[in-house]
């Protein structure tokens, strides 16, 4: 890969992070916030992978690759937990509304 492509990927990673961060703060629905956090995380992964590709000596650095792999798995788990929490919250809110109607 040429240095121009690296610059493009780094900027794309920064853009994904910034977009995701805005989403986390500006969106009210929890589902949208959870997706926004994932967009942020993917920006970080993209930056990491790009940095791994441009180390000196031409060989790709495997350490960031392994860290991104770990990161993806942890992100999946955190997302699943966040979705379950959001679902639980919704169920509790519905229960509360029903009680208030009575």
């Amino acid at each position, binding site marked *: 890969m040429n240095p121009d492509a690296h610059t493009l990927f780094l900027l794309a990673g920064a853009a994904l992070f910034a977009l995701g961060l805005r989403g986390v703060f500006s969106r009210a629905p929890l589902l949208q916030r959870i997706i926004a956090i994932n967009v942020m995380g993917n920006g970080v992964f993209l930056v990491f992978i790009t940095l791994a590709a441009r180390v000196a000596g031409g060989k790709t650095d495997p350490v960031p690759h392994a860290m991104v792999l770990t990161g993806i798995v*942890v992100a999946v*788990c955190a997302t699943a937990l966040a979705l*379950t929490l959001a679902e639980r919250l919704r169920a509790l809110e519905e229960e509360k509304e029903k009680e208030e109607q009575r």
Partner: protein
Amino acid sequence: MMARVGGWFFMVLVFGGLAWGLLSLPEEPPGLAPAAHEALPRSGVSNPVTAVLLNYRAYDTLLEVAVLVLAIVAVWSLRARPATAFAAPASPMLGALLRLLLPLVVLAGGYLLWIGAFAPGGAFQGGALLGGAIVLLLLGGMLNHRVLLRTAWLKAGLVVGLTVFIAVGLGTMLAGRSLLEYPETLAGTLILVIEAAALVSIGLTLGALFFGGRPEPDPDTPKGSSRA
């Protein structure tokens, strides 16, 4: 309106700061590639990423497998779902497709596990495929609720990866080495054993996370008949 403009301004500011920081990084940093490649012949595998994951930094991966167990414990304590939640197939076509596709998915998962020692692949990639297979099985209504309610087997599968990983770690310590410091001649085998156990746990965990809760007997069915 003001808040919206403020939000976009904030976003541009964050992007600008990040872009400036990233572009001012050194063009060709030394990185850890030389060290990782130099130790590769002694790691038991020839794929540097697998060597990092399961040899040099195996401790990280041990904790990552623990995170998987933690996630499923947290999800199961928050929510219970009737085992029949996915009883109806999402589409009648799915069943016919899955009968063709599933054996191939399982085969590809096993292949990814094996090839991980030499080329891109490994327990996580293979586990992701198995997790996808479980998701498809659930969507196709092909996972009998009786299977889901055999939670003892399910739980054993969910923790087997972490258990084997810890057992290997303790084994290396008993042999007088530090945690997860494999003997050179056994490294390849031990990595494959850990990965095979982790593959099962990762696949089951991803599938169970998709199910979204602790499977419980259906409240409508009379007690006793739902347990096989």
